[in-house]
């Protein structure tokens, strides 16, 4: 969803109630919210702060500390390039650069049309089949620079 759409606060309240308004479940709650919206909308953080009685600053510090959380809307498709050690020695940085060229965005950015987000991850634990790239949850093994355009083509309409 885009940032301009109004947020369904009932949905967020429902998630928080499912965790019995338990303060120590903050990370799980944020994960559930992100599973719905693909990022953490500002109003969702405010709602979590209010219902869980945790100061907003503490909610934000958790949301920004952990890499899995995003405070910005993500694209319709997300490409994640693994930069683990095994992928690195097999050329992962070059794969990432090729994604940056193809998508014309830098790592951590979302394209202006909202179609693509490009991310990296420290390790996906599929080191034997590296370099690994995950697009919308699909794993692509033994990626090469030349395979990148074909991978993207599958998801482009």
């Amino acid at each position: 969803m885009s940032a301009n759409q109004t947020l369904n606060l009932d949905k967020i309240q429902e998630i928080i109630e499912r965790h019995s308004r338990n303060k120590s479940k903050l990370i799980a709650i944020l994960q559930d919210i992100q599973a719905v919206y693909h990022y953490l909308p500002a109003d969702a953080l405010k709602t979590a702060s209010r219902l869980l009685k945790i100061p907003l600053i503490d909610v934000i510090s958790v949301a920004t500390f952990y890499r899995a959380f995003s405070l910005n809307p993500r694209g319709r498709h997300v490409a994640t390039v693994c930069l683990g050690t095994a992928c690195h020695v097999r050329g992962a940085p070059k794969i990432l650069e090729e994604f940056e060229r193809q998508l014309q965005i830098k790592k951590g950015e979302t394209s202006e049309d909202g179609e693509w987000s490009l991310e990296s991850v420290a390790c996906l634990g599929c080191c034997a089949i590296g370099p690994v790239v995950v697009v919308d949850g699909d794993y692509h093994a033994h990626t090469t620079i030349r395979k990148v355009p074909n991978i993207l083509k599958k998801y482009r309409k």
Partner: protein
Amino acid sequence: MKRMKKIKTIAELKQIIEEQELSRKNEPMKVITVSSGTCGQARGSLKVIDALKRAIKAEGLEEKVKLRITGCHGFCEAEPNIIIYPDGIFYQKLTPADAQTIIKETILEGKIIEKLLYKDQQTGKRAVKEDEIPFYKKQKRIVLGDNVLLDPTSLQDYFSIGGFRSLIKTLTELTPDEIIQTIKKSGLRGRGGAGFPTGVKWEATRRSPGDIKYVICNGDEGDPGAYMDRSVLEGNPYRVLEGMIIGALAIGAKDGYVYVRDEYPLAVRHVTLAIDQLYKAGLLGKNILGTGLTFDLHIAKGAGAFVCGEETALIASIEGRVGEPRQRPPFPSVKGLWGKPTSINNVETWANIPLIIKHGADWLASIGTKGSKGTKIFSLVGKINNTGLVEVPMGITLKEIIYDIGGGIPEGKEFKAVQTGGPSGGCLPASLLNLPIDYESLTGAGSIMGSGGMIVMDEKTCMVDVARYFLNFLRDESCGKCISCREGTQRMWEIVKDISEGKGKKGDLELLEELAIATKEASMCGLGQTAANPILSTLRYFRDEFEAHIYEKRCPAGVCKKLIRYVVIAEKCTGCQSCKKACPSGAIQGTLKDVHLIDQTKCIKCGACLEACQFEAIEAQREVAILVE
């Protein structure tokens, strides 16, 4: 799947295990086991499974052939692969198109399909069975071995290999103190990295005052290059959970947490399902098997922070806070989760527990070296022929792992280094290949055992680039609490980055060493205390490479972008135009069958031409421009 009824007594559990063991004996004549962990699925195992199902149905063999979908078998290089029992025929690198042939020829006619067998890279010999493959020969797969036998989503399957017999033994034959003594006597040490004796940790937690205690399974396998915990959680979650129930009994804990990385969706799914099934079966919750014992198990997902592998940071994360470590002592065994005594152990450690109870302390103590008992799983990855998870007895040499099991370095290249222990470990050179692997020997060599990542590097790997990679990782993952770690890793990264870009200067290496020691000594947690290892070990063993970058502005491995340029070797170029087509910046000129030329003003050094060329006609040479500058 059959719905599991609640098991009310120990006798009833015994009976169910016996029934399941018998039903395994009475399985159909042929069982096809498909490896389908995350790696297998990434390589297309799910499509192979569908095709096999269709082929079995088409031949009307549903009653005669059982398809068992298991976790990872460890030989990732050969995915997707299957093993056909009872003969143990191993077929590898399958596509859905192979399914029909396998069912028709091997299952129905008993013929071996030559082209699907594993072929030894060196001898060219084909292997029919799994144990004939060199990759498996020197391994001792006590933890990983059962992955082959189990559908990880089926509790019945776990019963059928005698699962939960160890729990019965602890409930009927051993007091909590006796359990702890058994674990102590076995010599088991933590498999997460530091190698603390597990039994001692349990004893300290048990002896700490208080009624409320916790056990935690640390599945936050954050070391890039290590994935054995993922494989165990995906492929055999019940073994880990049985270990936790036994541990909870010994320690006196009524609650436990399994903390799993968010980056491992399949592991999260299988553990969640396993916990759910154990509740339904009455093996978790209140009054377990009518013994009056209570143990509740919860799952907590990590959210992508390397530092959460450190036990006090992990505890903070379960409590819903920012994952910052705190000063120890008090150790978690005294003051852990919500201030209560807590025993945190790694996935692989927990998985060893039921085995020790089953076979006895002396059994584990008979494997390994004087100070390091049992086996360790390593993930053998990087520039190596046979990539995968290898489980070996402690004390085996690096050489045996890399050459006998791993089959050496691909493309006939020269071995340069092996990195163990992830960002907290170090790079070991060829001169240390005969080093027997145990906790002490690795520490002595300037690395650590760590969680077991083993990344092999060849002559085309630049050690300055590797040091830069780890420092970048560490400065990114440092939580920022200690200034020595936060600023130390940042500054070391800046210096190494400069060196890799040809901006290194005299005195840099001495400064790096000084910073490394300060970071090590002044930081509070394991991350900071070991953050210097990657740089100190590369400086210790590969100082000449750093010096080449600083004084000659040269990257011997041809990796550091600013110091190289790509050129076409005229004698080798066939003019096939592959590189020209691959080049994204239009920097390559040349007509068909003529020698090509790279226009250095247009080249962005992406490396696409190097990857595209099949004739080794593209070479990374020393950049001359930087010398002129």
